[in-house]
């Protein structure tokens, strides 16, 4: 059904599009007297907020003004492989100077995002290391959200360079970290009023880094993860977002002042990851309250009641994540079940069947793994607690732990699965599921 309503064309269209995206080199002013040469959508970082209506066809014209091939991935949507935005699935690359039209019917509703999905390798100024990311909100047919103001915030890291890890491999570390392309204190604060309920739509668009976010003097009521409502909204002191994860949280504005919301870890906030939130009528120095420790648990949001009816049996698919040493001067290579992409296995899925992916992480790195074109349900978290009802498209599998998720194979076509850390997916941490 979706395939009939979706297409990507690479020649000029007669009918004007609903939206246009121009991929262009861009100089981003992250701070006073500090610009970063990058690539952006429509000369802004993040790219424009695109709001689509669920189930209503949309066309987006994308023009690539850069010197390298590009593709735009519509992260979290159930789209056919030819427009999902991964060349591994079959979406064509947009050649330098070329134009492409993406036409599709967006679903499901919720907070999604779009970003480049190309290879960066050792070049830490390409692909997700650039500013090629933007918010995508699929509006439900009936909007029941209750809030007074909404902010979309993207966490990102810039100017990476490879440094040695204690485990003997190399990983990127970053000089600059931003929220919506600016360091803490640069640019306008978020302005709020006392008594408001503010909905924060937070995306971690970092190429490789997990981020922990706290809002001094306030708490977050988490209502959705990766754009999907959680079974039990919970009030938490801080958020943890792995690369590509999203958190939708409501904050009660009940503590007037000038506050900082930002990274809990000192060195990352010092690199700029923070934003000022200013109540109307408040002034003075911004205030930050250092949390005592890190806290986050997916289990907080699990459903307390078992689903009605018999849950269909899920076929297990074990996926073992391991690293292959490539030298103290190189990034590790990555394997799934002993093989690196493009030599990884391609399990055959049967449409309509339920599968249980068993992520067995034997490496010393954490991995934010992402399944394209589907949503999965968290079923088992480290320490063996069973969970249910939390629907996501990215889950962080901590080092030396096991996480299990279930999904229904309900969207035929090539389906990419990969670690969302750019350097891991570039070094083999990808595989394709195929439908029988």
């Amino acid at each position, binding site marked *: 059904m979706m395939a009939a309503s979706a297409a990507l064309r690479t020649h000029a269209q007669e009918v004007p599009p609903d939206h246009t995206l121009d991929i262009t080199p861009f100089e981003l002013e992250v701070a006073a007297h500090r610009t970063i040469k990058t690539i952006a959508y429509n000369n802004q970082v993040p790219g424009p907020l695109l709001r689509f209506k669920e189930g209503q066809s949309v066309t987006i014209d994308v023009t690539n003004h850069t010197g390298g091939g590009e593709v735009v991935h519509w992260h979290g949507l159930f789209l056919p492989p030819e427009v999902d935005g991964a060349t591994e699935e079959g979406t064509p690359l947009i050649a330098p100077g070329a134009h492409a039209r993406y036409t599709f019917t967006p679903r499901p509703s919720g907070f999604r995002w779009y970003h480049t999905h190309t290879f960066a390798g050792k070049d830490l100024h390409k692909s997700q290391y650039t500013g090629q990311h933007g918010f995508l909100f699929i509006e439900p047919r009936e909007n029941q959200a209750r809030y007074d103001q909404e902010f979309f915030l993207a966490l990102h890291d810039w100017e990476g*360079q490879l*440094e040695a890890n*204690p485990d*003997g491999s190399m990983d990127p570390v970053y000089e600059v970290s931003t929220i919506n392309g600016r360091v803490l204190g640069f640019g306008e604060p978020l302005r709020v009023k006392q008594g408001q309920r503010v909905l924060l739509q937070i995306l971690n668009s970092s190429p490789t880094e997990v981020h922990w976010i706290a809002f001094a003097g306030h708490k977050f009521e988490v209502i959705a993860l990766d754009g999907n409502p959680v079974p039990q909204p919970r009030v938490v002191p801080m958020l943890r977002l792995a690369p590509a994860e999203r958190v939708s949280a409501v904050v009660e504005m009940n503590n007037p002042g000038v506050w900082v919301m930002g990274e809990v*870890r000192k060195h990352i906030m010092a690199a700029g990851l923070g934003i000022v939130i200013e109540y109307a009528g408040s002034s003075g120095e911004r205030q930050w309250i250092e949390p005592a*420790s890190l806290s986050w648990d997916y289990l907080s949001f699990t459903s307390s009641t078992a689903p009605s009816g018999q849950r269909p049996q899920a076929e297990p698919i074990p996926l073992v994540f391991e690293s292959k*040493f490539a*030298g*103290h*001067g190189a990034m590790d290579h990555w394997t799934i079940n002993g093989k690196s992409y493009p030599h990884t296995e391609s399990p055959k899925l049967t449409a309509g069947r339920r599968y249980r992916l068993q992520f067995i992480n034997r490496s010393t790195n954490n991995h934010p793994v992402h399944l394209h074109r589907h949503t999965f349900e968290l079923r088992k978290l480290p320490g063996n607690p069973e969970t249910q009802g939390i629907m996501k498209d990215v889950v962080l599998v901590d080092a030396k732990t096991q996480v299990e998720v279930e999904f229904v194979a309900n969207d035929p076509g090539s389906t990419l699965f990969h670690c969302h850390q750019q350097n891991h997916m570039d070094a083999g941490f990808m595989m394709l599921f195929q439908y029988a």
Partner: protein
Amino acid sequence: MHKWMWVLALLASLAATRPLRAQGNYEIQVYGSATVEPKSTMVELHSNFTPDGQKYRIDGVYPTNHQQHETLEITQGLTSWSEVGFYVFTSWQNGHGVQWVGDHIRPRVRVPDSWHWPVGVSVSTEIGYQRAVYSPDTWTWEIRPIVDKYMGRWYVAVNPALERTWHGPDVKQGIGFAPAVKVSYDFNRVVSGGIEYYADYGRLGAFDSLHDQQQQLFVVTDLNVSPKWEINIGAGVGPTASTDHWIIKAILGRHFDWKKPSALD
């Protein structure tokens, strides 16, 4: 005057003399550019044995043959780009027992990561005293540029060191050139192996004849068992007449972190 001209002028003023050798076979190590992190300390024990060395006492200096050298090196990180190291040199030899040989101090700075240089670059300078029965040049100074680079499994480090005697018979011999080079290969995450080359060519601009130069070639292995530990083991030969012919070396280092561990850092 440009900065490099000042450096040249300084070197020219120092070029009156050179030592035969600064640290001898007490610390046999090619330096990498990385420095010890602030609020942490690296303690290393350098153990070097000379199975086949100088067998005769020359100019009052004990023979090196069958000497066991134990050197304690303590390096304290100062900033993210600087450190200072202290050395205590000792020697054990049949007939002489355990003897204190001397002490050195070695401040070192490196190019910060934020400069994005394609290679690691560092400069150390080392000043110290050693007893005349172990080295006729009792006060020596060394400046050691350090350039290194990891390339996948390969590692290359070059230390084109310059040495000078401040007190001793070689005080008028000028600046000596004593390069060291290391090339190693990572066989796996733990075991690396390679070659280390150490030399003292003699006075800068008027190198000694090959007969009088000191040259040593070591086959070494580095065992990366843990970020806390440093292990380097090697066996070397000295092919020239002025070099100890056969040396065994080992470095055992332990890293101590004094920072209070916090997930928030």
